[in-house]
């Protein structure tokens, strides 16, 4: 297990398989189940959001456990915190994650997501960051690009709702984050 001060993410023993018992568990001993991603597509948006939040919180909890709790996560540098969060989401099979900062706005980009539904991926991101930092964060989809990358704004619930409205009105993500910085609304 990595120490809280270890900046790098060590995935060793992140998932354990007990073949005799026929079980899979994470590094904390929590039981896991391997579910085909196509099965998640069968669920509705609300169910996907609930499952995503739960999966994300589990990943965030492991990050916090690695980095010394939510205080340790918040005090960690962006690079260390992003590395641990991305590592845990990658082990869970959510996709490749990195973070962009647009002024004061925090934008998370997910490449090769396991599920195409934005509600599920957004719920995973919001749950992971909330569990890791100890602060309630809400995600809002900013749109997808041709390569399959999906951008999500992470912030307050009110701001996330506004972002969804701006995206629904047809504005590009650059315009949305510019508006969020205090520009024209």
């Amino acid at each position: 297990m990595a120490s809280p001060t270890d900046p790098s993410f060590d995935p060793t023993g992140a998932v354990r398989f007990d073949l005799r018992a026929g079980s899979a568990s994470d590094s904390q001993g929590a039981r896991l189940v391997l579910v085909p991603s196509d099965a998640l597509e069968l669920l509705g948006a609300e169910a996907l959001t609930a499952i995503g939040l739960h999966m994300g919180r589990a990943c965030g909890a492991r990050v916090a456990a690695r980095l010394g709790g939510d205080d340790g996560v918040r005090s960690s540098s962006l690079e260390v915190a992003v590395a641990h969060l991305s590592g845990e989401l990658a082990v869970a099979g959510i996709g490749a994650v990195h973070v962009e900062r647009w002024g004061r706005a925090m934008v998370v980009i997910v490449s090769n997501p396991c599920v195409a539904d934005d509600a599920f991926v957004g719920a995973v991101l919001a749950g992971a960051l909330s569990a890791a930092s100890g602060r309630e964060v809400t995600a809002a989809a900013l749109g997808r690009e041709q390569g399959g990358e999906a951008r999500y704004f992470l912030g307050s619930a009110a701001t996330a709702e506004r972002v969804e409205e701006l995206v629904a009105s047809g504005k590009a993500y650059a315009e949305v984050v510019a508006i969020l910085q205090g520009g024209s609304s």
Partner: protein
Amino acid sequence: MSANEKITRLQNLLERVQTRGVQPREARTNGASAAFAAPVAQAAYVAPEVAEPTFDAPAFEEPDLEMMPAATADASSSVPPPTVDYDVESDMEVEVSSEVVEVDIDIDEPMALESGAQPVGQQTMPPGEMEEELEPLVAAPLEEPAAELEEVVDEPPPANEIEEPSPSSSRRPIASEEPAAEAYSEESAPRHTPPPESGKQVAAAPSNPPSRNPSMPPPSLEGHTLIGGWREPGLGPQLGPSAGSPVRGPGTEPPVHIAPPAVAAAQPSGTRLSPDVTRPNLPARANVASFQGAAPVAKPKTLGELLDLTLGL
């Protein structure tokens, strides 16, 4: 057949011709009935008037035989058809053999005859006989005497003679010379106006000739340039560059100030008004804006600071 035999036969033939030519006209006319009874082919060979001068006795002597190929050569060239008038009534009794042509074979000829271009026969003939026999010899080609005689006797056949249609390849009668002479006379007439006499054509003077400067140099220095050259006529010294007038380019003309027609029309006569324009003198550039402080740049170092920023939106 040797040459001697040919000569002998020719002499016999000549004698027969001479004796029949001496006979009175009535006897020959009576004998014509027998000739008409003969086949048409034999009648075609009858040509008494032509045969008499052609086969004259001295012409068939040994030295005179040289003229035969010469005459043939002349006949082979484009010689006009014979124009001798024949007495048809007296021609019916004379039979001429075509073997006469063979006489010209074994005779030694001078080198000049081999070319065939020199009319040797005319030169070797006696001058006295030449005047009489030249025309028939030239007119009657001996290369095909029978055919020529047929052509000569191309006149209305006797009543008891069967007229056969002439083949398409036969010779056609040649028109008389009188229409041709008329045609030539028309051709010889001048078709165009006679060419002008040699000399320079002088153009007609115009009704109003334009005035032109003389091309002769003036007696004074008016037409001469300073470097000794000659100026083109018509260009006065005041127009040349040496006179001091500047050469103007296409864009160097001074602007022409023309008052607007509306303003000019609005001005009463006698008073002229012009606007007094006052324009501001402003600098082209200046440092107008001034800034104080700097815009806050969020550079969070920890995840907690970034969360505070993004949650503060």
